[in-house]
């Protein structure tokens, strides 16, 4: 509360329950469809150039037959409070939104130094290595609320800021506060098990704030002090447990 700007607008946050994530990739596809993310084709995808803003990670533990995959972990931009990507951009294309308390990427300002991506400990940023144009009538499905990126531009998860801004505008036009869960990003909206929960962290009663207080809550690479807005719930679920 030392910084008066903390109270501005909203502080958006996300909680991902890894005990519920089934790794189904619905979030990945939903994100691509909402945010005009281009597909890159097999060759570039094989070379680490695919443009998914969210990826589902899994590792392996043990040897057959006791082998087990680790719980699925969707990794997206963690929308850090102290984001390493922000100070290094020479042109302010990667900036902190004081209003929404997220990191935004201003595509039209990006000159493509890729420093932000290097400095992102979560490797959550992707770069348009080519002009990945959507051919033919496929471009009919492009979302007019999201800028179509061309070659040489860094992009990343924005917490679907177009939905946030629109939701705020609607609420303001109707002269009311936004309800919890009124605005959700495409991934949380699609998630079949509701493992991804989105909401306002500045509202202590919101679902996401309540979940964040769960004893299982951890943050990715907490030791770096990036203050992520995304919280993971790890280990067996404790919902409905007695005591």
């Amino acid at each position, binding site marked *: 509360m030392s910084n008066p700007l903390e109270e501005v607008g909203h502080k958006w946050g996300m909680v991902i329950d890894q005990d519920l994530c089934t790794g189904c990739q619905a979030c990945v596809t939903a994100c691509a469809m909402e945010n005009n993310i281009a597909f890159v084709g097999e060759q570039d995808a094989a070379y680490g150039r695919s443009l998914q803003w969210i990826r589902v990670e899994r590792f392996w533990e043990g040897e057959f037959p006791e082998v087990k995959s680790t719980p699925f972990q969707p990794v997206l931009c963690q929308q850090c409070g102290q984001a390493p990507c922000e100070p290094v951009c020479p*042109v302010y294309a990667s900036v902190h939104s004081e209003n929404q308390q997220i990191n935004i990427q201003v595509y039209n300002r990006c000159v493509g130094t890729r420093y932000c991506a*290097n400095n992102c400990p979560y490797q959550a940023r992707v770069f348009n*290595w080519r002009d990945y144009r959507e051919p033919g009538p496929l471009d009919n499905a492009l979302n007019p609320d999201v800028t179509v990126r061309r070659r040489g531009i860094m992009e990343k998860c924005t917490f679907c800021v177009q939905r946030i801004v629109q939701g705020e505008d609607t609420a303001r036009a109707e002269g009311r506060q936004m309800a919890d869960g009124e605005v959700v990003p495409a991934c949380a909206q699609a998630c079949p098990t509701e493992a991804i929960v989105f909401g306002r962290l500045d509202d202590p009663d919101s679902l996401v704030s309540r979940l964040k207080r769960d004893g299982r809550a951890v943050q990715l690479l907490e030791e770096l002090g990036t203050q992520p807005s995304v919280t993971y719930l790890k280990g067996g679920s404790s919902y409905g447990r007695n005591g």
Partner: protein
Amino acid sequence: MAATAKPIAPATHEEHAESRQHLMLDPRPRGEMNAMVMESMHTTSWKFWGIAFLLGIVVLVCLFLAWGYMISEGLGVAGVNRPAYWGIFLVNTVFWIGISHAGTFVSALLRVFKAEFRRPFTRAAELMTTFGLIQAGLSIFMHMGRVWLSYWLAPYPNARGLWPNFHSPLAWDFLAINTYLLASTMYLFLPLIPDLAMARDRSTGWRKVVYRVLALGFRGTEGEWAHLRTAMNIFAFAILPVMFSVHTIVAWDFAAASRPGWSSTIFGPYFVVGALHSGVAAVAMVLVVVRGTMKNMKYFIRAEHFDAIGKLMLVISMGWAYFFFNDYLVQWYGGDHWTHTLLAWHESGPLAWIWGLMLVCNVAVPWFLLWNRKIRSRPGWMFVIGLLINVGMWCERYVIIPISLTINRMPFTWQSYRPGIEIVLGIGTLAFFILLYMLASRLVPLVPVWEVQEGQMAHSLRKFGRKTVVSVSELE
């Protein structure tokens, strides 16, 4: 110009003279020396033009056409990917900035410390600074995803109401490199003025026009010399901090990032020493070529100069090894999991041979060979050693940038880097550097004649009893 050097009979002081060859105590008349230099510029064989033509084609194809293709296609034609967002472009940038350090170091630092052996080759080194920086600038612009918007890095009032982000090491870089380019070009130009005036007085035709313009009407009066000396003195002192800061800032690009292996406080001086390592080695290489291919250069550039440069290279190699060891030890001792993985990736990953090559070329080769004075004074050997050191230093940057970028804190994304068009573009920058140097060698006296003459005037051998010593007379 009060002092006059006395010719010394070679027979009398043979053993001393040999050890003082770098002072060039066998002066020739000024007119003759000037003519020698002019002749070296004008004696151009068809081979020269053949090579220049070929290089021009290489530059056109490998640099401009390839770059144009990359701009129109996007960086996908290069090998950069996630997580190796920076590839050979940045390797080359750092490498060329390193090369450019030699000029300033050899020229300014040795001038400030009045190291006399510098005289015949300051010009060659200064040219390297400017031309190397041009390649560094090209490389970093190639690296940008939208190079056509690079002017946004410049701070100027604009319609968007936006400024560059001065928190970003890249913004510092932009300013530092530009400052350095400007300063080093001026520093190249100042000592060039008397030579240009000399050339003006000895040329005809279009060259005369060019020299007349460039020489700024220098006639060699006492006053002009006094002003020039003052200016050069100021610049020599001023450019040194600029030089150190530039490579330190380049190092901060890495050190300021929060990545395993990069966040190292020693990167600043480590990079500076690395730059000197490759730069001085490159000076040696250039001198070998200049001496071997241009007329009359064997008089100006002598085996003893190579000997002196070889000593310098050895010392710098030790300095580099010290910093490398220091960095390695601290990183390793720190015990961070990711750093350990990174070191393992360096040492035993599929590209461990690059890491090994780096150590062999940067440490083993100079340490084993440069102890030997005979090797030091043989241009052929020096060329090979210089080349190896440059290969080693290039490998060092390759290890620090694309190889290290493979390893980050998200193992799910680790991915090796496989260069694409950057190799072609790298060849293009190299060819451009050589081409610029070749063309300059026809336009600019590669040896600062006046400086050599000044040195010869200042030094003379005097006998004190049975001993012969070199005396230096103050010039001012």
